[in-house]
Each structure stands twice: as C-alpha cells, then as structure tokens.
C-alpha cells in the first residue's frame, strides 16, 4: 500500500471515529432512557400521559400535569418570542447597516451565549420578585414563559436574519421596482420566499427552550399540581425530571427516565422537522 493510500485510510478512519464519538453519547442516553423509562410507559401507556403525579408509595401516576404545564409555558413563550424574534431578525437583515440593526446583532450575539439561569434571575427580579418585581406576586408561570421567550428571541432573530440574507438582492429590488412599500416587500414577497427558513428558526428556538429547567425553577418555582393560573407556579417536564430524578423513590426515578425519553423524542422530532425545512430554505433556483 502506498503512503498516499495509507494516509487516506488513516484520515477516513479518524473521521469515522469522531463520528462515532459524536453518536455514542446520544445513543447511550437514548438507550438508558428507553431501558429505564420505557417499561414504565408501557405499563401505563395512557395513564402516564394523562394522569397527575402520585406521592411515593401510592404507586402509579403520570406526567400529564407536566405535559400540560409545558404546553402552556412553551405556548406563551412562542407567542411572545416568535413575533419579537422574527421582527428583530427581519430588521437586522433588511436594514443591515443601520445603527439599530448593528446594536441588535451585537446584543443577540451576547444573549445567545448568555447563561439561561441568569435570564431567569433577571426575569424574576424584574417581573415577580416580592422586593423589586414590577408584578410582584411571587413565582409565576407567566414569568417562566417570559424568561423562555427571552432565551428564544436572539436565536430566532439570528436564524430569521440568516434566512432573509439568503434572498438575492434582485428579488428585493424587483419588489420595490413594482412600487411595493417596505412592509409589502417584506411580508408579501420576502417572507413567503423564506417561510421554510423562518419555520426552521422557530423550531430551533423551540428545541432550545423545550428542555430548559433552570430558568423555569428560578421564575416559576416547582409545582406538582395541574396548571391553574398564569400567576402561580405551574409544572413542566424538565422540572419534573429534575425533581423526580433527584428523589429517593424508585417509582419517581422511573418516571423521570420515562419523562426524559418523552422530552428527548420531542426535541429530536423538532430537530428532524427543522432539518427538513432547512433543506428547502430558499426555494429559488
């Protein structure tokens, strides 16, 4: 074998090895979740998704309340985060040289890397702290949504910006040459052109916040009840995993694994969807 071929084989081998190193942790976590949590789900396939948690020793119960709470929290977070992130991203792309766009880009880049627990603490202090909060009512679900939205906004903004920047400038000029106004150009021509990219942006943002627990614990606290009011703590899947996982009770631990499996599948599903959209980010030739 020539030296060239040997070197080629070596690099190919290294590439496969790094791929393996990347895939092993994912496969391992998934495997653990299936082994340790799968059995619990199979033993109560309906109850697990619809029932509330039970005290240790009683047996049974599910994570229905946490699924419900997560849906509420993520729903409100999307409601705040998607429009704000989208508009910011569009502005950064369409007015890219303006001082505001530059500032927004700078702030987004910092916020993307910002420790999420700090976002939670800031949100807590501003919105619901008994001492400094503007809506001082104590830990509340709406504050968690707000914190999740804050985490999501820079991710959505930057991804939407990237999507808009893939649009050739001729398309933009074509719209203005037809006498279209700024908002008509953006919302009637450009946005439809990159709707797949915007969808991807939203899904990436969603995937990022779906698994967050620290900002929820800080702003919303912990709840083991059904969601009742926006101004009170609500349950959520990530926090349930944290609480159940650290408990000394076998059945709670099994449910934590089962909930982890659900969360993982959810995030992976969102990721796959996002990938599918990315493939047709720009529909033009």
């Amino acid at each position, binding site marked *: 074998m020539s030296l060239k071929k040997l070197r080629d084989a070596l690099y190919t081998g290294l590439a496969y090895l790094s791929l393996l190193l990347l895939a092993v942790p994912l496969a391992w976590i998934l495997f653990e979740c299936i082994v340790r949590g799968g059995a619990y789900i199979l033993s109560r396939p309906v109850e697990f998704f619809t029932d509330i948690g039970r005290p240790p020793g009683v047996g049974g119960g599910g994570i229905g309340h946490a699924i419900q709470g997560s849906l509420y929290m993520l729903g409100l977070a999307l409601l705040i985060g998607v429009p704000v992130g989208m508009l910011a991203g569009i502005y950064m792309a369409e007015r890219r040289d303006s001082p505001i766009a530059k500032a927004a880009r700078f702030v987004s880049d910092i916020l993307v890397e910002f420790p999420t627990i700090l976002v939670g603490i800031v949100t807590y202090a501003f919105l619901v702290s008994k001492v400094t909060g503007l809506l001082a009512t104590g830990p509340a679900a709406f504050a968690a949504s707000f914190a999740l939205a804050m985490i999501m906004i820079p991710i959505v903004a930057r991804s939407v910006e990237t999507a808009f920047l893939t649009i050739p400038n001729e398309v933009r000029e074509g719209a203005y040459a037809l006498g*279209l106004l700024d908002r008509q150009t953006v919302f009637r021509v450009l946005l439809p052109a990159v709707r797949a990219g915007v969808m991807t942006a939203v899904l990436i943002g969603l995937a990022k916040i779906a698994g967050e627990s620290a900002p929820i614990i800080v702003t919303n606290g912990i709840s083991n009840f059904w969601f009742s009011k926006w101004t009170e703590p609500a349950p959520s899947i990530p926090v349930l995993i944290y609480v159940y996982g650290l408990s000394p009770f076998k059945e709670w631990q099994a449910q934590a694994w089962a909930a982890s499996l659900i969360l993982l599948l959810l995030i992976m599903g969102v990721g796959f969807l996002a990938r599918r959209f990315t493939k047709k980010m720009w529909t033009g030739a």
Partner: protein
Amino acid sequence: MSDNVAVSVRDLHVSIDKKDILKGISIDFPKNAVTAIIGPSGSGKTMLLRSINRLIELLPRARVSGKVLVRIKNELQDAYALDPSYLRRKVGYVFQKPNPFPHLSILKNMTIGPMLNGIAKGKENLERLAEEKLKEAGLWDEVKDRLHEAAWKLSGGQQQRLCIARALALQPEIILFDEPTTGLDLYNTKRIEELMVRLKEKYTIIAVTHSVDQAGRIADFIAFIYNGKLIEFGSAASVLKSPANELTELFITGRVLDGVTA
C-alpha cells in the same frame, strides 16, 4: 418645455460614499421613442437609470442632487416630490438579470403588483390583466398552460419577458431597461429587442446597453455617457454615423477609452 419630452434630467449629481458617480448630467428623453444609453462599464449608466425612478434610494449611502422630471398623465412632474411607490409604478424597471419572484407562480408574479397597488381588484380582473400583459410581452402562448408553475422554471429569456410583462401590468408610461439581454442567447436577445421597439408605441423606452450594435438595432436616440458625464446625445443615426465628439467615436469604434479623461 416641449410636449415631446418624457423625462427631463437637469444637472444630476450622484455620489456614493463621497465618490462622484454622475457629475452634472442634463438630458431630455423623447416621448414614445427608444433612447439607448451607451458607455463603458462604470460610466454611471445604471445609476442614471436608477435615479429616474428613485431605485437609487435603496442604496442608503447614495446622495442625489439635481432635478428629474417625468411625464405622468401628460404632465411633467418632479420625480423626487412624488410618492416613490407611485413613481415606480409609472416608471417601470427591467433589470439586467431576470428577477421574477422565484417562489411565486407565473400568474402570481403578474398579479402581485397590481393587487397590492390596487390597480385591479378581484381574481377575475387580475387574471384578465395578467393575460393581456403577457400577450403584450409576447409570452402568453408559451405560458398559458402553466400559469400556476413556479416562475423559476422558465428559461432565462422567458423570465425576462415575464419581468417585462410584470412591469407592464402596472400600467407604466415610461419603462427603464438596464441591459435586459445580458446573458441571453441570440434568439431571446432578438425577441426582447423587437419587443422594446414595439413597446415604444405606447410607452417611452430608456435602455442602458453596453453594446453599440444593440443600440444601433433598437434606438431612435443615443446618449453616450462617460465618466459620469453626458458626452453626446442625438439621433441614433447621427451619433453612430458622424459622432461629434472624439470620445464617442473612440467608443463606438471599439477603441480603448481607458486613461482618456472627459
């Protein structure tokens, strides 16, 4: 001012990032005629064209001074005092590279302008307008059975004719063409040239081209721009056969202009 003038440019200066692109251009473009703007690359032809319908304002660092009057509804009006959206509808623009909205259907490309500008209302009226203008641009027979296909599936020449039809659908009075046949084959170039000549009956055509031959084929009048200045303007025959300026002669005979200052 003469009734025969469609666009009147007076002492037009354009600079981008403090670099002077146009250095005081004054010219009257005749109505219902094809005027070709010729000149070497970088002489400011496209910027002159873009100053007329204010597309130049999309460049945030461009500075424009001087006056541009455009004849709309048979009255010369200050282009820079008009609503830019209205101005651009009345003064259409066809780009160098065909730029249909690639994600929209052929039909939607035709109707989106009239719809958003309120020129025609209702599906039926919009589709009738689209058909009429596609016919005017000589594209109808080729696309009538595929109106709902995406525009990017058309060939380059068809895309360019779609862009012309799209501009016509806004009922303009003047149409600006920026080297519209760049990158097209001879057959498509010929079709678009014939179309431009035909369109002058209803519209005023101002076309930038770097091809002297093309100017000779389509133009009634020729303006030669060099280094941001208007060097010569006159009937196509006189400019091509007996240019008054030495620079014009150098350019139309294909000799080098580099280093010569106007």
